[in-house]
């Protein structure tokens, strides 16, 4: 799966969980500072991403995923 496909899939999850328009979920955006996603929603997003991409995202890794790009790269290298 390409990074573009991962980003697209992740953007769909973010839109479903947090109501952020998928088009706004770009690699340079911070989940907390730019997309206004709280810690509870981040857990939901991580669980849905695990199912969608077949990865494990442990809590200590989740804490490091500050931007959409961080998440895309993590998923790309661990899926």
């Amino acid at each position: 799966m390409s990074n573009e496909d991962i980003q697209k899939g992740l953007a769909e999850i973010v839109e479903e969980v947090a109501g952020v328009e998928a088009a706004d979920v770009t690699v340079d955006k911070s989940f907390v500072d730019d997309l206004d996603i709280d810690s509870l929603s981040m857990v939901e997003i991580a669980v849905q991403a695990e199912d969608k991409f077949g990865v494990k995202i442990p809590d200590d890794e989740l804490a490091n995923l500050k931007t959409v790009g961080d998440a895309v790269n993590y998923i790309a290298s661990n899926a």
Partner: protein
Amino acid sequence: MTSNNDVVVTGLGATTPLGGDVASTWDALLAGRSGVTPLVGGFAERFDLPVRIAARLAVEPTEVLPRVEARRLDRCEQVALVAARQAWADAGIGDGDVDLERLGVVIGTGIGGAMTLLDQDDLIEAGGLRKVSPLTVPMLMPNGPAAHVGLDLKARAGVHAPVSACASGAEALAWAWRMLKSGEADVVVAGGAEACITTITMAGFIQARTMSTRNDDPERASRPFDVNRDGFVLGEGAGILVLEREDFARARGARIYGKLAGIGTSSDGHHITAADPEGIGQSRAIAKAIQVAGVDKADVGHVNCHATSTPVGDVIEPLAVRRAVGDHPVLTAPKGNHGHLLGASGAVEAITTLLSVRDGIVPPTLNLDDQDPRVQLEVVTGEPRKIDLIAAVNNSFGFGGHNVSLVFTQA
């Protein structure tokens, strides 16, 4: 008599089995319509429940709330938010009109987020811990409806959630009244919310032998004070009122519906589900509310009853009314129309009691064809009754022996 710290009502909101707002609910009550419908399929069929009727919301809260907001809320929180936003808009309080540190919220629920508890239990059974939503606790906690409304309004004088079963909504109004009287707040948004038409709540009520099984005639199933009543019909909904100190409301030029003139609470100390058969605790609550309101018993022309359509409960309340008020008030029992909204009922019925006082009209009790001879007071049936009211009482009683009476008067 100084009137400036009297408690007035300036905003109303509701979503009920009769309608998605106060106006449609009130119109349905006056027109004698029922909100009870068949429960088809789902858990009722799967577990072969003997009760196949319920009073579900006329308007789904998910049709009103934004999708993402709705998915973070239990249904009881959704209805609270829907009704609270209506009430707040109705009160016409603009930005900056009230110091947020002087704005309180008190919203009760009898059960809380039962649907969330069941849904999340299904998820952990099927998929383990990781499937459980991180929002589970804020969705199922019984202070959730109050907390979410408090956040929505940024209320900072205190957010409270009384829990006293079917008296919760009325107790919330009593608590709000105290906050205003004690000077803790200038404005309090208060009421009740409930949405627990679920497997386990229905099964529990069925096992307690409290529900009507008149499945073949849903609209006739809830029949308070009728000799052929056989139990209550479970409903869902929310009622929210905006209460203010009178001087504050007058200073901002608010439209005033009427006064919450007095409150009275008591506890039976008798049994966990059954009311004291003589209604002593109930009459103490009514008498206290009238005394606190400072109205003459003779001026209490109407009682909006708790009467749920159970064989045992409906004959006790009239005894309490006669002891505390006398033989002159005319009664009505709106649960014949909208079923029993549990923790929301006291608030929704407070709204209709207040509208009765304001408009001088009492809705009829639906399905009261043959009045139980033990109910020795006049109950309005058939058509709405036009009656000039100085004051009216609204009663709510809950499992646990909680009794709450409210007295409403004209503005």
